[in-house]
């Protein structure tokens, strides 16, 4: 029970910090909308809806990266991460709290982006949206861990995309597949599998990334 209350306390902390600092979420919103507009000009006339879905996923991945790069910044000001690591709570709770908070921001950005996409490009059915939601879980779970890894070194903004993109490829496959395929179930199942496997792996290994 204390584990859950730790996670809740940490998630609330992250949401509160972002609500006050107000730098990450507006940037993500602006970025995703700007990307959609760029895509309009990048797509040739005859490109079908399918190409648009592909570009939607590119936008999602890079917007997520924007959010993830900033995810641990509050912890690195004033050395706060040390403070959290020193506490008797489970270190994985720190990761879980951060993952939930990042997920909240990503969902908020998508709550604007997806309707905009439907308006500007192509319709999204339930399977497509389900794909987005499932992929979001994977993105945030893996991304939070990798962001913590990258943050310990130099050139962290450069390193995180390099670490993250290969791992994001299966998510893009799942997401695009659930949007355009006539049998989206297999893609949704695949996304759920990815989430399960990588979330557990991230949860278990976070401890090793933040301690010596």
């Amino acid at each position: 029970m204390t584990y859950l209350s730790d996670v809740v306390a940490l998630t609330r902390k992250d949401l509160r910090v972002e609500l006050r600092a107000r730098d990450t979420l507006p940037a993500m919103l602006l970025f995703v909308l700007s990307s959609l507009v760029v895509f309009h000009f990048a797509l040739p006339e005859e490109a079908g809806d399918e190409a648009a879905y592909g570009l939607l996923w590119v936008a999602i991945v890079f917007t997520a990266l924007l959010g993830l790069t900033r995810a641990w910044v509050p912890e690195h000001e004033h050395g706060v991460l040390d403070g959290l690591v020193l506490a008797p709570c489970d270190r994985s709770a720190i990761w879980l709290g951060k993952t939930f908070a990042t997920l909240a921001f990503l969902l908020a950005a998508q709550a604007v982006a997806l309707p905009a996409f439907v308006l500007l490009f192509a319709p999204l059915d339930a399977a497509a949206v389900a794909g987005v939601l499932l992929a979001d879980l994977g993105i945030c779970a893996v991304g939070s861990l990798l962001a913590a890894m990258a943050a310990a070194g130099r050139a962290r903004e450069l390193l995180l995309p390099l670490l993250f993109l290969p791992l994001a490829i299966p998510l893009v496959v799942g997401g695009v597949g659930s949007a355009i395929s006539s049998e989206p179930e297999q893609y949704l199942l695949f996304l759920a599998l990815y989430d399960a496997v990588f979330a557990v792996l991230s949860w278990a290994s976070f401890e090793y990334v933040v301690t010596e």
Partner: protein
Amino acid sequence: MGAAIVLGLLVAPEDADQGISQRIFYIHVPIALTSYFCFGLGAWKALLLLWRADQRYDLESYVAIHQGTIFGALTLITGSIWAKASWGVWWTWSSNQLVLFLVLFLFYCAYFMLRFSLEDGPRRARSSAVYALFGIVLIPVSFLAIRLAEDFVHPTVFTREGPQMTATMFVAFCVSWAAVTLLAYVLYRVELAGKRLDAGLRELREAIG
């Protein structure tokens, strides 16, 4: 000495077949398999590092992954040559194996970027180990993803020739595989020894100076 044996063995399979595309197959597939094996070894050593907290495993994991990446690059190159020989193009997205290796190659290149950006020490060892474990899990997941992507990414234009091997070809293949594995093992030991020597020398220099 090991290298001489290996080279000798590598030459042998070339006699037993016809056509360059088949010949490349004898090298390409063993190299790919060896690459997987190296990544697996790297992940195993990484697990041992996290589990036993013995820094020794860091170097072993790193060298294994280094070898895996080198063989991975060779897989891509030989695969590209095979594609050119079989289908006339230097690259095709319809070869699942090639695409998988491209993804893995990018992933493990990022591994080296990670190591480069962190300072030497237990932090770097642990983060590298965790990333190595992610890599090994990524292999089957990516494979599945690529299979799923077949349906919509690019239509399969080229028919893939599954190797229909006669008995002698099979033997030649196994010999080649053994040879490449042996080569990889030798390179692994050599690089590991070299790196340990470097570390030992550095420590000596510091103790003196």
